[in-house]
């Protein structure tokens, strides 16, 4: 049987995705059969499906880490496994498990009793895993769509809330528009070169100069699609509205998990297509500067906590894109370092936001900056963690965020981007203002009129928040682990 030999190694390489996909089907069957069974009296299985999903993600993590084959490509080169994809998958899985833990309290309080929510989350994670491994525009587009469709549903999941449905519709319309641009770029590339594979495309672009301008147009369209998904500046309009309107458990996901997978795809596309011309570094740099300006100045006017964090996310994407535009080993590894730091800090930060609850119980999606008032008196431990997180996001020295920013700026200076680096450092000073303003309202303002109630932390939430707090503080003293991982990712991209 030639067939069985030929696919022996394929199965090993796609085993994590295969396992996750089968578990999604299993969870769907479990949920629909048990929750509608008369003999069990129609039980609520959302929590059980959530915990089973966490178990499935842990097992997927084990399969990713203990893959017998370190690298390889399967299915005619559309799916690759290498150092980059392995580490990126580990970080996606770990951050998703963290997100599920910190949003568990919110899910319980606001009674998200549909087990489908967790199935949709699992599909989003599956899409990201495939996206990280994709080495062909066909797989990349399909994986991106799986992830995006799951996200549209997650944004609109609170059906009885007008904000949530509005967020879902906005996300869907704008997201499908950006997917169209991406698909148009891919179709142009296919028209010129007759292939959608990254490695073959890079060879063709390297060899021939016939279609260089046309390939640049195609890459520009693809870049717009990807920058949209990253919420980088000229294409960022959707992100604050979606973050604000979506239920908090979905917002946590949008904020923390998908950045790394889309960034991996951006690097793969950039490495395949854009090394032949310099203009794409400039395009990404322009987007980076726009993101930093928007993220610094627009955030100053924000009153809502979720919108503020969305704009601060745009700001961080600006720093990331500065690293992407240089595309050296040093800058790529510093981008991944920044992503890890952002992910860790984001887990603690959003964990704290998820326990905020106003006394009139309108829900955490209306939390404003004023709601943080007198946090130091109500819950001093949380206040300290919040302050440390915000200092880390701002990039203040004895914390992990400082190293992340330092790496990006250092690689920018080494590549000779002196003016741009100093400009972005100046705007980062401005962005420090609103982080410190949050700390000010948590520590020095006490609004006794609207006393905010902090929901008691569940063990899972407390564990995630404490662990990420520990990482924020102690990875500064020994960032070797993150350095090694990010360097491994960068090296596997360039070799």
């Amino acid at each position, binding site marked *: 049987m030639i*067939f069985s030999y030929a*696919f022996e190694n394929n199965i090993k390489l796609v085993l994590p995705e295969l396992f996750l996909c089968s578990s999604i*089907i299993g969870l*769907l*069957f479990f949920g*629909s*059969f048990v929750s*509608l069974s008369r003999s069990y009296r129609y039980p609520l299985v959302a929590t059980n499906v959530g915990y089973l999903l966490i178990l499935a993600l842990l097992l997927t993590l084990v399969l990713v880490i203990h893959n017998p084959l370190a690298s390889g490509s399967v299915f005619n080169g559309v799916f690759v496994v290498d150092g980059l994809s392995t580490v990126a998958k580990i970080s996606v899985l770990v951050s998703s498990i963290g997100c599920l833990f910190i949003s568990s309290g919110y899910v319980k309080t606001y009674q998200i009793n549909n087990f489908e929510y967790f199935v949709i989350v699992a599909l989003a994670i599956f899409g990201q895993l495939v996206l990280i491994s994709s080495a062909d525009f066909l797989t990349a587009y399909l994986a991106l769509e799986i992830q995006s469709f799951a996200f549209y549903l997650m944004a609109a999941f609170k059906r009885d809330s007008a904000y949530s449905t509005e967020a879902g519709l906005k996300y869907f319309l704008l997201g499908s528009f950006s997917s169209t641009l991406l698909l148009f770029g891919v179709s142009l590339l296919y028209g010129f070169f007759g292939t959608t594979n990254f490695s073959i495309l890079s060879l063709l672009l390297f060899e021939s100069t016939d279609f260089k301008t046309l390939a640049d147009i195609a890459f520009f369209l693809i870049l717009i699609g990807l920058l949209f998904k990253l919420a980088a500046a000229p294409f960022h309009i959707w992100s604050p509205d979606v973050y604000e309107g979506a239920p908090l458990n979905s917002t946590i996901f949008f904020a923390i998990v998908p950045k790394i997978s889309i960034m991996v795809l951006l690097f793969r596309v950039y490495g395949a297509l854009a090394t032949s011309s310099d203009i794409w570094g400039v395009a990404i740099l322009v987007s980076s500067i726009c993101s930093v300006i928007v993220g610094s100045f627009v955030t100053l006017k924000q009153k809502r906590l979720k919108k503020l964090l969305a704009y601060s996310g745009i700001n961080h994407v600006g720093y990331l894109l500065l690293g992407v535009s240089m595309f050296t080993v040093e800058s790529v590894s510093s981008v991944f370092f920044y992503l890890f730091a952002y992910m860790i800090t984001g887990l603690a930060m959003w964990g704290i936001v998820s326990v905020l609850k106003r006394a009139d119980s309108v829900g955490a999606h209306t939390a404003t900056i004023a709601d943080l008032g007198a946090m130091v008196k109500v819950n001093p431990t949380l206040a300290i963690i919040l302050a440390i997180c915000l200092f880390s996001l701002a990039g203040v020295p004895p914390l992990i965020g400082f190293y992340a920013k330092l790496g990006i700026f250092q690689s920018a200076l080494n590549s000779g981007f002196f003016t741009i680096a100093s400009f972005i450092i100046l705007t980062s000073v401005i962005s420090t203002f609103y982080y410190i303003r949050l700390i000010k309202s948590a520590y020095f303002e006490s609004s006794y009129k609207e006393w905010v109630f902090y929901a008691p932390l569940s063990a899972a939430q407390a564990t995630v928040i404490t662990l990420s707090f520990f990482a924020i503080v102690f990875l500064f003293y020994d960032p070797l682990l993150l350095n090694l991982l990010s360097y491994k990712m960068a090296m596997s991209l360039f070799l």
Partner: protein
Amino acid sequence: MTPFFHAYAPILIVFVLSVVLSLVIFGFSYLLAFQRPDVEKLSAYECGFDPYEDARNSFDVKFYLIAILFVVFDLETMFLFPWGVSLSSINAHGFWIMIDFLFELIVGYIYVWKIGGLDW
């Protein structure tokens, strides 16, 4: 005869035939049939709705659900036909990939059935 014409001639023939056939059917039914118009017959048929009312009225989401399910399984057939035609020239890999596709659609179908999406 250029290769271009060879390649696209069947499409041209089908296009012309379909235009002619639709004109014949439409024209003869207009010319030969008895015309006895009334209000109900002349109004456009729009799935049982009044076609000229405000578009913002709410209607039952079940219509939408049925339409979506129809599209999904209609597309399944669209993939099945080329697969069935080319089955003799694709190997076991191609065969099992389609079986996997069908399996995943059946999973969705069972879910929809179980959750009551097919009940009216």
